[in-house]
């Protein structure tokens, strides 16, 4: 059964310096509050893994938590560039950032392989692109039946995956719905997992489109209402599109970014 914890304790116990950390959520249900707690606790040298390192990883990268990024699309969705990400890659600020770069299909299948206990996944992908030239983690594989050449990518096995969901019950069973992305795979692929939820309930109604993670497959659950903001939790909140648009200006300069982190992450403190 998953342990019910506070966000502070969950991050303190499950996210360690040097870890490979995946914070997933495909536009929807992004665990922003947990990301902020990682910044507050000053984690260092993380390998951040995420299909779409959008604003949440822009913040973690700008705050200096990351040593390496494994990803497939690093932009501010519908807005433009991630300025902290660009600054790290182009000017090594606040520290150099190693990149390992994939396509969405490749990353999704790497999580699937991790969740499946397999060392690799096979896909039709990457062929003819320059991506395989920049990592050893994209390799050809031959079908033993047809002789066709396809592409293999190694499993992702994060030390810890953090996701946000709508609800959990007191046994730590987790319920999420709406766009559920790659979160199930990311949790099952990880050695440890922390799920923040809008609320912990005694019992829930089943919801169409729900994904349920049994409590015995989750390490810890923390109740963090609004923990996805400025992303959203279908049925609880709507996406704060203004925040994403405003982030472009906030993040464009190092000083405005630092001021934002001071005020909205450090001074704000952890949720009660």
């Amino acid at each position, binding site marked *: 059964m998953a342990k019910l914890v506070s966000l502070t304790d969950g991050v303190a116990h499950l996210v360690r310096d040097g870890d490979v950390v995946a914070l997933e959520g495909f536009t929807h249900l992004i665990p922003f509050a947990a990301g902020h707690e990682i910044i507050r606790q000053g984690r260092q040298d993380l390998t951040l893994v995420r299909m779409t390192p959008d604003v949440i990883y822009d913040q973690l990268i700008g705050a200096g938590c990351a040593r390496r990024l494994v990803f497939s699309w*690093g932009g501010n969705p519908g807005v433009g560039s991630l300025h902290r*990400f660009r600054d790290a890659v182009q000017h090594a600020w606040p520290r150099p950032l190693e990149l390992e770069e994939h396509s969405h299909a490749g990353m999704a299948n790497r999580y699937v392989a991790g969740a499946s206990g397999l060392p690799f996944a096979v896909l039709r992908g990457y062929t003819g692109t320059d991506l395989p030239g920049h990592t050893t983690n994209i390799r050809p594989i031959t079908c033993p039946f047809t002789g066709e050449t396809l592409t293999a990518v190694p499993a992702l096995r994060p030390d810890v995956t953090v996701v946000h969901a709508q609800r959990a019950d007191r046994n730590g069973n987790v319920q999420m719905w709406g*766009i559920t992305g790659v979160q*199930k*795979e990311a949790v099952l692929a990880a050695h440890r997992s922390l799920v923040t939820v809008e609320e912990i309930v005694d019992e829930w109604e089943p919801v169409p489109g729900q994904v349920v993670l049994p409590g015995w497959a989750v390490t810890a659950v923390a109740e963090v209402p609004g923990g996805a903001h400025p992303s959203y939790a279908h049925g609880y909140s709507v996406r704060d599109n203004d925040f*994403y648009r405003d982030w472009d200006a906030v993040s464009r300069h190092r000083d405005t970014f630092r001021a934002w982190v001071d005020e909205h992450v450090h001074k704000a403190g952890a949720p009660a």
Partner: protein
Amino acid sequence: MMTVAAARQLRDGAACFVGIGLPSTAANLARATHAPNLVLIYESGCLGAKPDRLPLSIGDGILADTADAVVSVPEVFNYWLQPGRIDVGFLGAAQLDRYGNINTTVVGGDYDAPTVRLPGAGGAPEIAASCGEVVVIVRQDLRTFTERVDFVTSVGYGTGPGDRERLGLRGGGPRVVITDLGVLEPDPVTCELTLTHLHPGVTREQARAATGWDLAVADGLATGAPPTARELAALRALEATKSDGRRP
């Protein structure tokens, strides 16, 4: 005009892999005009989304609420895109070459120390590989239309005829490139992008001057029909659904 020209490329009933921004607007414009049964597929896992307003991101709640089915991200790539079930894929580009190869990764310098770091691949390499055909929507200027892309993020026709087959890419590749100046289509023999239509008021010289290679022009170069009143009204109605008009 780019949006209208892109919308016109979509036949009714087609399954269409839609990214955010202009492709999403174009697809929803097509759905509001000549293609009410267009099937919109977003990489967030929404199959058959029918938004009545324009989403800002591919993961907006309106897409899930109106979809025929919401599936996981691995499923959308593995069960829907990869086997070739999607008829049309939309792609943008930071750089594009004469064979329709696309760069959305890095510009200038080298990979480890680029002049400009772009968002990267996302779903594009496999959209380019597996969709029945690809529609590229891109601004036409010398920065974008380059002799060689600095990084091949998504393959068009590679280095020319036969390359897609040699690489084992099963989708048809770029069928049309729609720019702010006109429309380009691959030459059936050479696969080279060829100017086939100009938007009203644009000259072939303007288009050639905005292209970083010696742009081929089709014999029957035509001028596209201007947007109809119906198209313009539908487009305005769609744009009005953006919550505050501050769309970047």
